[in-house]
């Protein structure tokens, strides 16, 4: 049942315990991270296309949830197809607290400093409640039961009309201001440009938190649970505590992700939080790289941006139908097929995901021109 992860052989050798625990194992990785942050910060100013901004907004919002799922699946070895449920809990928490009181369903009109943290805390608590039941189960049984969570959750979302708007759904229009800064439009920036900073700042904070968690004592305990749960218990790791802890944190990040996803979407209905969304998250973790922090973000980028790239360059793909009235394979179908294929191919050919491809490329250039 444990997820055995192949060691990344080409990582720089750690000579001591403290080496292995460094935030950035090499100067290279630190510089790369700084570069990435600068690139992300400059993006909305350099690329003003509303379309690409919105694609990357969705990518950012989902990346936070992918980080959470990676913590649960990649670092603790628990499979969950129930992630979409916790996204929903986070989103509806944000709606209930943050939406204006005059809307239907009525919100509380609270500021972002209240609704955003609450959107993480409430799902984390729900995770604590649901967790003990779910974590009694293992492997396949857990996968199917977490699937049940999505269906039961959808029923609750549909029936709790005073909060969720029932099957009519609800608009998501909470205040986006923190003190003097309003992320609905900072300075002369558009809404999407401003939101971009909010979302990606939270991605950065979440990534740092995850990274710090996994290199600390609880993080090592979690990985011990993943690699051999019985052995972990023998050396004094409390299985229940760390499994439950990981489940709760993962649910909290999912909630945060759901709240931002809803803000970007501006409207949610119970059908939004369904099985395909859960599958997307697992796919992000797989494609990005299981058990690596960067993997969650890379996976979200790949799964979120690939369909858009395909659409953009579809004019040069020969056999695809261009309009609804043409027969044959249509573009959206092709995109779905590529989505399915990428899951299958990554798992069969490169189970360590994009993050491993990156390490491999890096290792190649490190030794260049002496490739071996």
């Amino acid at each position, binding site marked *: 049942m444990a997820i055995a992860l192949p060691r990344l052989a080409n990582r720089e050798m750690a000579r001591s315990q403290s080496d292995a625990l460094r935030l950035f194992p090499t100067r290279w990785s630190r510089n790369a991270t700084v570069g990435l942050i600068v690139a992300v910060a400059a993006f909305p100013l350099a690329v003003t*296309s*509303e*379309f690409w*901004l*919105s*694609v990357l907004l*969705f990518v950012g919002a989902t990346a936070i949830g992918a980080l959470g799922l990676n913590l649960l699946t990649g670092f603790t070895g628990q499979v969950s197809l129930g992630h979409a449920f916790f996204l929903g809990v986070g989103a509806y928490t944000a709606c209930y607290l943050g939406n204006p009181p005059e809307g239907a369903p009525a919100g509380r009109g609270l500021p972002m400093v209240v609704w955003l943290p609450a959107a993480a805390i409430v799902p984390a608590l729900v995770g604590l409640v649901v967790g003990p039941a779910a974590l009694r189960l293992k492997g396949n049984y857990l996968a199917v039961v977490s699937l049940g969570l999505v269906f039961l959750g959808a029923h609750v979302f549909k029936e709790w009309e005073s909060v969720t708007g029932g*099957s*009519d*759904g609800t*608009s998501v*229009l909470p205040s986006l201001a923190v003190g003097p800064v309003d992320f609905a439009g900072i300075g002369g920036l558009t*809404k*999407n440009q401003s939101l971009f900073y909010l979302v990606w700042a939270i991605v950065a904070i979440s990534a740092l938190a995850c990274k710090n968690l996994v290199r600390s004592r609880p993080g090592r305990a979690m990985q011990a649970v993943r690699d051999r749960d019985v052995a972990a218990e023998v050396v004094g790791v409390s299985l229940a505590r760390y499994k439950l802890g990981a489940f709760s944190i993962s649910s909290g990040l999912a909630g945060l992700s759901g709240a931002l*996803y809803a803000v*970007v*979407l*501006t*409207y*949610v*209905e119970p*059908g*939004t939080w369904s099985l395909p969304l859960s599958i997307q998250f697992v796919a992000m973790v797989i494609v990005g790289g299981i058990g690596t922090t960067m993997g969650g973000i890379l996976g979200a980028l790949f799964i979120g941006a690939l369909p*858009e790239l395909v*659409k*953009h*360059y*579809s*004019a040069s793909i020969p056999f695809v139908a*261009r*309009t*609804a*009235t043409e027969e044959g394979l*249509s*573009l*959206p*179908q092709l995109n*779905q097929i590529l989505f399915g294929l990428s899951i299958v191919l990554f798992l069969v050919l490169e189970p360590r995901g994009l993050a491993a491809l990156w390490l491999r490329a890096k290792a190649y250039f490190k030794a260049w021109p002496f490739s071996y």
Partner: protein
Amino acid sequence: MRHLSRTAVASGMAALALVAGACGGDGPSATGTTGDGGSLKAAPGFDPATNTIKVGIISALTGSGAPIGKPLTAGNEVFFNRVNAKGGIAGRYKIQFEERDSANEPQKAVAAYNELKGNVALLAQTFGTPSNKALLTSLKADGILAAPASLDADWVREPNLLPIGSPYQIQAVNALTWYVTEGGGTGKKICALSQDDAYGKAGLEGVDFAATKNGFTVASKQSFTITKGAEAGAAVQSLKDAGCEAVFLGALPSDTAALLAIAARTQFAPQWIAQSPSYIGALAASPLKDYLARTFLVASEGTEWGDETVAGMRDMIADIAQLKPDQQPDYYFAFGYNQANAVVQVLEKAVALGDLSRSGIAKAAEEVGTLTFGGLTGDYRYGKAANRVFPRETTLFKVDPAKPVGLAVVKKSFTTDAAKEFKIG
């Protein structure tokens, strides 16, 4: 930018136009017809250099909504191509359409909208109630006009939406009022069976209104959840136990089949009266066809498919023969065709007003007056959103497997007094 562009087909259309020859209004002669010839300013989706107006279509082209979304979009396409073949809007501005798939999911619709909004003049179709609700905030913020493919009455008072057709409420009011007055339903036990969402509730609202106006009570109201293959036996059984003699149905075709199969098996044969999207032509070819022919009425609009006495139908059949000969008869196609017609009428007005910008198009929608559809759907009077007058007519069809789409007219385009009194917003 250039994806999904229909240059190839558009040039084909141009060729057709040359062959047809008769329409002399295209090309150079049109330049003089509008006073501001050539002076229209560039706007999102409008390029004065090429004289093309780009419109977006966001529809369900995959997933369970596709059997509805695909013919709808085909209807859009055929009408636009017909206009292009005659030279375009005002005889000179060609329409180009860009299609995106939403799979009837709001998040995909929003993503598609963000991609399209920068380079289209308006949205010629936004499919489904949830997607329209998701898009409404952005449409208002960006000032873009969109034509919803959904007969929800909520859209009537939204200035950024361009609905056509009688709302579901009106279908229910007209059909039930007809039933208790001249349809032989006086004193019969009337019930309702609807799916538990906004679409089902819209019909129920009409049922309740009809009950108040005509002084009958609804003997039993049952609902079922929209899940493919939901266990619907209990709802049908309850209606049977309540002794219902007529049932108003608000479902989607796959559920209609499941529900009627149970009714047929348990020998429950009330007068079914259905909201238009409950029916699809394939049902008239299914093993249920005999049961349907005996018991089923559909409340919709327009006329029988192929009824050449109606000008709109005659034109549409001719357009299909010329532009898309393999199109099967389909009322969703007709809806898409009418919808594109409404869009074209608004664009004509915007060109006449000399402004194809977003605010210009919004103004055109206010000042366009009455939109007409050659009898395919009711006249729709536009104006400020608060003053719009939506059509209140309904055509009742019965199932006749020998007819195209399996539908024969029972009573054509009638408006009951009760429907005239129905108010929205």
